[in-house]
Each structure stands twice: as structure tokens, then as C-alpha cells.
């Protein structure tokens, strides 16, 4: 494995459509629940340990070579909000386009053929990590980082937050991200014995509710 591949995959500039998504930060900011670096940190921490953990475990699972279609179905069962399912599949389709050029491989082709409208983004991320010869833990780290990075970037644009402070928020959550990634890799390691029930199902009620609120806004800067 090459740690540089992980940097490429995790880079916020990796062209996979993420820049247009706030990960729920746009509604949290509009409601006044996120207004500075401290509240941004709380938001990111909550997201990371709930939906972020699920995403990391799905990515780690896909990186082990476990059947991505079962993981995709498990992702649906863990995502009651249709708005969030729609976003996860669109981002998965956009990521698929990017990684098929970056790290081409038959497993990506098979998944793209089986889910032409897009598989859940973390599943695509995990298969891509596998094509890039990364480990399940690497894939989980990339997903955990992605779960924090999206809202932070959005907050810089929406709040005019000092970008140094915002980056410090991300850096301050490194311990949390590593913890989530190793939990996720642990869950993924149990997949062969226990099936998808081995995956965590942690959820954040407010993210579910606000995702549906956001989807009805006529005017918004971010797609989610």
C-alpha cells in the first residue's frame, strides 16, 4: 500500500462532487445551531460518531472485498431519509466516475454496472481504496475524514469562518477520526462471520430530519 494513495483519495480536491455538499452544515448554520468554531466542532464530532462511523464501516467492509451489493443494501437500511439516500447514491456515482479513471479495476466496473444510478458513496470509496491497494483501516480513515471535512469546508464558505481555525477543528478531531476508523475496521473484520449485522447502525436524528428540511428549500447554496 502507498500512504500517498490515501492522501489522494482523502484530498478535499479529489474531483468527486463533494464540494457541493455541506453534510447537513447548511441547515445547522441557518438554524443558528452552528455559528463558530466551537459549535462546528460539536457538529462534526456528532456526525463523525454516528453516520460517520457507519460510512467508515461500510468503506472498510468494501475494502476487505466483501460483497459491495450487500453493503449497499445495508447502507439503505441504515438511511431512513430518502434525501440522504439520494445524496449518498449521487455522490457514489460521482465518486465512481473519478475513481474508475484514477484506479481502474474490474471490481469498480462490476459495481458500476450493477448500480448504474450509483451505489452508496462509502461503498464506492471502499472498493476504490481496494483498487488503490489501501487497507480497510485506510478506507475507514478516508470515510471518517470525509465526514468531518465536508461540513468544515462548507462552514468556511457559509460563516466566513477563519480558515485556520476551521482547519484546527479538523485537526482537533484527529483522535476521534482514528478511533472511529479503528472501530469501523473492527466491525468490517466481523463481516465474514456475522454478515452485515456486524456493521454499526449509529444514527443522528437531527441529521435525518434536517436533511429532509433542506431538500425542500427553494434557495440554497449546497446540494445537501
Amino acid at each position, binding site marked *: 500500500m502507498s500512504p500517498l494513495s490515501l492522501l489522494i483519495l482523502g484530498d478535499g480536491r479529489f474531483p468527486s462532487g463533494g464540494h457541493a455538499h455541506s453534510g447537513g452544515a447548511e441547515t445547522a448554520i441557518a438554524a443558528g445551531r452552528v455559528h463558530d468554531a466551537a459549535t462546528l466542532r460539536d457538529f462534526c464530532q456528532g456526525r463523525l460518531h454516528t453516520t460517520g462511523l457507519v460510512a467508515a464501516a461500510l468503506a472498510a467492509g468494501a475494502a476487505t472485498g466483501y460483497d459491495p451489493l450487500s453493503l449497499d443494501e445495508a447502507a439503505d437500511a441504515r438511511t431512513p431519509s430518502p434525501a440522504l439516500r439520494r445524496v449518498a447514491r449521487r455522490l457514489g456515482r460521482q465518486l465512481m466516475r473519478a475513481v474508475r479513471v484514477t484506479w481502474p479495476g474490474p471490481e469498480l466496473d462490476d459495481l458500476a454496472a450493477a448500480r448504474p444510478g450509483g451505489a452508496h458513496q462509502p461503498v464506492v470509496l471502499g472498493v476504490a481504496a481496494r483498487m488503490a491497494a489501501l487497507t480497510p483501516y485506510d478506507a475507514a480513515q478516508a470515510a471518517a475524514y470525509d465526514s468531518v471535512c465536508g461540513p468544515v469546508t462548507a462552514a468556511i464558505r457559509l460563516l466566513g469562518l477563519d480558515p485556520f481555525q476551521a482547519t484546527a477543528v479538523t485537526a482537533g478531531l484527529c483522535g476521534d477520526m482514528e478511533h472511529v476508523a479503528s472501530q469501523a475496521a473492527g466491525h468490517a473484520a466481523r463481516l465474514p462471520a456475522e454478515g452485515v*449485522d456486524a456493521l454499526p447502525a449509529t444514527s443522528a436524528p437531527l441529521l435525518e430530519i434536517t436533511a429532509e428540511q433542506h431538500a425542500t428549500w427553494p434557495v440554497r447554496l449546497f446540494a445537501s
Partner: protein
Amino acid sequence: MTAAPARHRGLLAAAGGHHRFGLSATARIRAEAADGTTDLPLLHGDGPFVLRRMPSRGPQARVCLLNTMSAPHNGDRLRIEAAIGPDADLHVTSAAATVALPGPTLEPAVHEVALRVADSARLAWLPEPLISAAGSDLRQHIRIELASTARLVLSEQQILGRAHEPPGRLSSRLTVRRDGRTVLDQETTYGPGVPGWDGPAVLAGHRAVGQLLVVDPTDHEHPAEARLLTDVPSGAHAVLTPLAGPGTLLTALAPDAGDLQRCLDSALAHLF
């Protein structure tokens, strides 16, 4: 046919083997269709659980779950099983809120609910809220197995802390399998030591969380769009979402138990 007598907590604890400080109990219900009505050939209370048969309503048998001890305490292991046979129709409520309490041990309490609903059968599982008291630690897992033509209405209400106290730690997982496929798997964990639980992504100060799940494969109207409920108290949020499999889930957040109940009532009005 009703409950085993509620025994003294100390006696149960002594019998509890390696869970020295906790009690261990399993209540069981079996419902079977018989001549247009529903029989309850098994209604077995245990430990704190007393199962009381209520007057039937047409084909529907009704059971009320009474918690006759203060349970669960940390370290307790409680389980309820219900099996609804083909064509049977069962309605289950509880007489009062369940309060998760601290105990003499640091071990969490475990509460498992296992519900099996056969083809053409119907289950309404509508217990009173679960209250997580300060210092308690409860892990709850509700597992539901539905046959492909089974129908279900299930509610779950969690109140974090009694009045004017911080909550205990409460983790709750709801796993719904239909025809062998998992159609919903959701876990929430709140309380001291859980990173970000009360932050702006998860609860943001709300202290009452509820879910209402309706699975009805005979209902052909299955809208792809979610519905935000507007007739809910201010400070509460509630959304009805169509699941990827058949089924609709209400997710509601409210400042307190009363407002949460109003969210559930509103959702029921939208759904039925």
C-alpha cells in the same frame, strides 16, 4: 396463563449466577389466529414483567405489559419475546413508563425485545416511554422479524432524564428484518461519555426522541417523498420518511415527553 408472581429482587439476584447483582427475566407471548379471533396460548410473565390480558377488540387480542418492580437497574438482563402466528392480530401496550435506573453494579442493563410476525398477521407494539434516569446505563435492542405479508405498527419513545436531571446513558438499536432482508437498522446512543450526542448534529438540546414505524405491504401507496410534519409543537421536529424497503418511519425530536407524544399523534393522524 397470566404472569409468574413477581418475586423479590434479592431472591432473583441470588439465582442470577454470574450476574450477581442483576436480575434476569424473560417474558413470552404467543398469539394465534382462531376462528376470526386471536388466542394467546402463551402469556408468560417473568421477573418484573406481568402480562395482563385486556378485552379483545374484534379479531384483535390486547395485552398490557406491567412492570411490577422498579426495573431495569444497571446489571439487569431483561427480555421480552412475542410471536404472532399466521393471520393473528395482537395489540400490546404498557401500563406506565419504564424508568432505567442506576444499580449496584457498573454493568449496563440489557433489555432485549424480539418480535416475530408471520404472514398476514398484524402486530401493534405501542409501549409507554422509556425514561433514562441519571446514572443509569441501558442497552436496548428491538429485533423484529416480519414475514412478507406481515403488518406492523411500532412506537418507541425515549426521554432523556427525569425532570431537572441529566440523562443516564442509553443506547437503543432497532433492527427490522423482512423476508430475511434487513430493511431498517438504526442505533442511537445518548448520555454522558458519548461523543457529540447532544451537539448540533444529533440532539441539540432536545430531551425526547421518538420513532413510529409502520410496515404495511398491503398499502400500495408508497410515496417516494418524505413529509415534514408541520402540526407539531414549536421546538419539536418530525419527519415521515419512506424506507428503502416497504415501510414508513417517523423520526421525532421534542423538548419533552408531552410534545413528543403530540408529534406521534400527528404522525398517526397522517398515516391512518
